[in-house]
């Protein structure tokens, strides 16, 4: 550790003893959160999330491809994060380093394990063709707490994603179309779809008129992160706090108040009481963030 963070650590812990933080927040208070959706025209869905000075952009692209052999009837999702050198003087270009990979995997897990995207509704022809969902996370400005910013951006982007059926029509043969149509008619109704894609009266001509439809999603869990510095637990760490943090804990909670994912990071440790504290803070802040998220997607 270089000298500057050591001085800052002194300052931050001294403030902590007086119950204060460097930017004047209380211990469990988040910075201001802004979510802007549909910011990239070329993407199927996109969102820019600001938490204080931290800015993350997430774009969703979709394609048609082969499913994995062990899951022939589910769509495929993959998540990648780029720590581009634009965002911080310490980020370098080149293949993603371990911190970018950890971030991408934590976001991926949050989305995948909680089954936010109903991947089984994204199968076109079993074993042959399914929708692929690519979640790409771009860090634009790094001022701490990328975990929360990135997962929130991914969720907001996914919730506003339209499956680009009309763009891929020519890639589907008669068999695919029938299978896709059958699937939608028999098994599922997707909220927000006025007409079922590939309706019964399909002809080559009116295929062009088929609507794209929203990605089938369920209510997502919201993740909240806190760090521990000495004996203090700070929610939503800014960059200065994150750099000197001993330990980090991310807790994702759903709308029912249950815990859906956790990830502890860094070399410090938490006590049982501290973990309880973080869970409580994650539930309280999670509710507020959920409201912001729902507002941003017009719900």
């Amino acid at each position, binding site marked *: 550790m270089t000298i500057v963070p050591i001085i800052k650590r002194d300052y931050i812990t001294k403030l902590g003893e007086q119950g204060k933080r460097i930017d004047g927040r209380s211990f469990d208070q988040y910075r201001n959160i802004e979510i802007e959706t549909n910011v990239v025209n*070329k993407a199927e869905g996109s969102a820019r999330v600001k938490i204080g000075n931290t800015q993350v952009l997430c774009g969703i692209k979709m394609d048609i491809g082969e499913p994995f052999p062990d899951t022939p009837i589910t769509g495929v999702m993959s998540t990648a994060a780029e720590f581009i*050198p*634009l965002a911080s003087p310490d980020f370098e270009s080149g293949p993603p380093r371990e911190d970018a990979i950890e971030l991408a995997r934590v976001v991926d897990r949050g989305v995948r394990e909680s089954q936010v995207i109903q991947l089984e509704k994204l199968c076109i022809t079993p074993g042959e063709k399914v929708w692929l969902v690519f979640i790409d996370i771009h860090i634009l400005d790094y001022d701490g707490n990328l975990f929360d910013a990135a997962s929130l951006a991914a969720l907001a982007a996914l919730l506003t994603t339209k499956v680009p059926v009309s763009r891929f029509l020519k890639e589907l043969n008669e068999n695919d179309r029938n299978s896709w149509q059958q699937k939608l008619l028999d098994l599922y109704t997707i909220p927000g779809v006025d007409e079922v894609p590939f309706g019964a009266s399909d002809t080559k001509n009116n295929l062009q008129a088929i609507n794209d439809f929203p990605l089938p999603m369920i209510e997502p869990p919201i993740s909240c992160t806190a760090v521990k510095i000495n004996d203090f637990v700070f929610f939503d760490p800014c960059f200065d706090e994150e750099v000197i943090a001993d330990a980090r804990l991310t807790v994702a909670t759903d709308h029912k108040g249950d815990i859906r994912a956790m990830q502890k990071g860094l070399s410090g440790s938490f006590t049982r009481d501290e973990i309880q504290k973080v869970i409580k803070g994650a539930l309280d802040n999670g509710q507020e963030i959920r409201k912001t998220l729902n507002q941003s997607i017009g719900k």
Partner: protein
Amino acid sequence: MKSDIELINSEGRRNDGRGPHDLRKIKIEAGVLHRADGSCSLEWGGNKVLAAVYGPREAVPRHVQNPLRAIVQARYNMAAFSVEDRKRPGPDRRSVEISKVISEALEKVILIEQFPRASIDVNIEVLDAEAGTRCAGLTAAGVALVDAGIPMRDIPVACAAGKIGGKVVLDLGKEEDNFGDADLPIAISPRTGEVLLLQMDGHLTVDEFNEAFDLAVKGCQTVSEIQKKAIMQKYQSAAAEVQE
């Protein structure tokens, strides 16, 4: 393919409603990022780019240092979701080439001799792409460099002209770039008119080239005014904040 699509009608109206000498809509904002020393967000038609400048700082690794001057390392990068079919993240041959020509264009206007052994890093992120991203990127880089307080001879600016349906026009859009006859992106130093970047692909007669070149220079001058306004805007709002 070329003859299939009418890009410009007999009255000189283009598909997006522009006349032959009209630019797409441009919006520039300076100082949009917190960590960067200087930054700029720029929208140019359907293009959305973000530029951030770091430095002058020590150039690493050591062997890239120049004892007599700073090096300028521009890095042009496209987001995976910025194009119709997802682009694999990371540099490809196209972005490496664009990074190189932009670096060289910027070196000409920056007072690099003031910062021996240093590096001035210019990161250009294309978030949304719709033809003309290198011009948008270089124009954004110019504003970000000013925002970072890097001493320069001039604020570099770029704009393209081209030929569609046999006519020379300013600032090609997506379809015009794909199905047009020629594309001529240039960057200039607007005070002196020196050309910092010039590329061309397609087919132009010498007369058409001259016409397109003059048109592109005119476009650059227009964009340059928008750049200056964005920079003034930033300092005016900063001044207003101080007064409060």
